């Protein structure tokens, strides 16, 4: 669990302005750090702090080390998979982000931390 931060008097607008989401800008091709929240056989559900989680397939090489709680590196393609069908009034969303799994998060000493 992340340490609880003391509440400052900063407004939400100020917090948003310097938040990493705004720093990131357009999400396409940005490398982010994610955490695996759920595993279904070969599907890894990874939360990277965006609006939705993403689902990636377990890689063939070194895939056994990736379990629930592992931190991984992802290349984000889309924060939300949504598009409008012909004749629709609103977009239809999959409630999922799309990202490419790059591999486990390598720390300085070479081990990947498990939270």
């Amino acid at each position, binding site marked *: 669990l992340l340490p609880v931060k003391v509440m400052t008097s900063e407004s939400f607008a100020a917090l948003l302005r310097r938040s*990493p989401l705004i*720093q990131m800008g357009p999400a396409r091709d*940005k490398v982010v750090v994610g955490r695996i929240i759920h595993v279904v056989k070969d599907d890894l559900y990874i939360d990277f702090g965006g609006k939705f989680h993403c689902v990636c397939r377990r890689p063939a090489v070194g895939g056994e080390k990736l379990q629930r709680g592992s931190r991984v590196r992802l290349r984000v393609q889309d924060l939300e998979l949504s598009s409008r069908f012909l004749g629709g*009034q609103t977009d239809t969303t999959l409630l999922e982000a799309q990202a490419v799994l790059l591999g486990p998060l390598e720390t*300085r000493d070479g081990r990947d931390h498990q939270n």
Partner: protein
Amino acid sequence: MAGSRLERVGTVFSRVRDLMCSGVMKPADKPIWFDVYEAFPPKKEPLYVKTKTRTFVNKQSNVPAIFYAEDKVRAWFYEHYGTGSRSFDLSNSNFVSVCQRFVLKYSELKSHSELEDSALYEMTAKALLSEGITLKQRARHPVSLIKAHVHTHTHTHTPDQLTCTHEEKQNFQGTHGK
């Protein structure tokens, strides 16, 4: 079609009349109101009229886009240096990415000096280099790549080509790690 029991096709009368005409409904099953309706039809035919649903007028225009002054700097940064050498940690609200450092340094220099934008960008890159953050220029658009390729044959190594060596990258990760 002999008749339809769907309540929105025609009127009740037309439906019952058609059902009787076709023989689906026997004369013995004729409803009591049928002859009455035939003799004294109502002023307004009870036809179901679909109310015109308003087509989706662009309501999104009421919501303004969120743009900050530093977005211009960020756009320049991402165009020239690609996505940045460090991965983003979105769950940490105090996270400062390479781009953000660039933006902060840029605004700092802008407040002190009166140079124009392009010169300020160069200065910011040099200032970050002195702090230990090296920025790798990313490959440009293929058209400009061809032009750049032609130029590199004539020009020698320019100071703008800041390449990231392995040791510097490790040092950078060491000082700015979580």
